[in-house]
């Protein structure tokens, strides 16, 4: 049982490049989330999904896109990378959403945009 798997763990991008952060969970969770964590700041919600085919914006969605074609996968697309997108990105999943707060997080993807 792998839980939540994120790839890649590290990536350096040049300004203007695009990339996709992958997230997969094997717990059959309906709810999935993308957060970013910056030094001295709390985790910020980028996008979330309450089930396959359903996504919605969080607090800081600009510059990102998501899709959810299967229950297991929730990729995060960065278009035209900017230095402000330098951050650690965490994917999380849950059976009941934030009602219980019991989110299962991946180990993170550290992205640097130069």
């Amino acid at each position, binding site marked *: 049982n792998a839980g939540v798997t994120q790839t890649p763990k590290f990536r350096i991008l040049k300004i203007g490049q695009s990339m996709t952060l992958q997230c997969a969970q094997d717990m059959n969770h309906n709810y999935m*989330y993308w957060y970013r964590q910056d030094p001295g700041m*709390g985790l*910020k919600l980028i996008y*979330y999904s309450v089930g396959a085919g359903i996504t*919605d914006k969080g607090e800081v969605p600009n510059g990102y896109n998501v899709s959810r074609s299967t229950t297991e996968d929730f990729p995060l697309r960065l278009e035209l990378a900017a230095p402000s997108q330098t951050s650690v990105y965490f994917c999380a999943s849950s059976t009941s959403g934030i*009602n219980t*707060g019991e*989110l299962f*997080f991946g180990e*993170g993807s550290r992205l640097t945009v130069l």
Partner: protein
Amino acid sequence: EDQVTQSPEALRLQEGESSSLNCSYTVSGLRGLFWYRQDPGKGPEFLFTLYSAGEEKEKERLKATLTKKESFLHITAPKPEDSATYLCAVRWGTGFQKLVFGTGTRLLVSP
């Protein structure tokens, strides 16, 4: 304005030296307060959920309590393996799947 504030930012304890971490919040209509542990280079790990003032939850050396303005994470006789950053998050309102996270308290327990 900050809606969730954690203090202290960092705390160094000797093994066995009990202490408390604080999470204060200013949101109204709290629908849940959550504690997580985050080890360096890892994602947060869920610890506790508290829903109403007076509620307490325990797990090993950790006990979380909740009042109408704040939550405490009490650490009794900590061990070096308790060293981590402890995050709290709150949920309020309806519908939107949003948690507001604090910036965390970095705990270091020395042997």
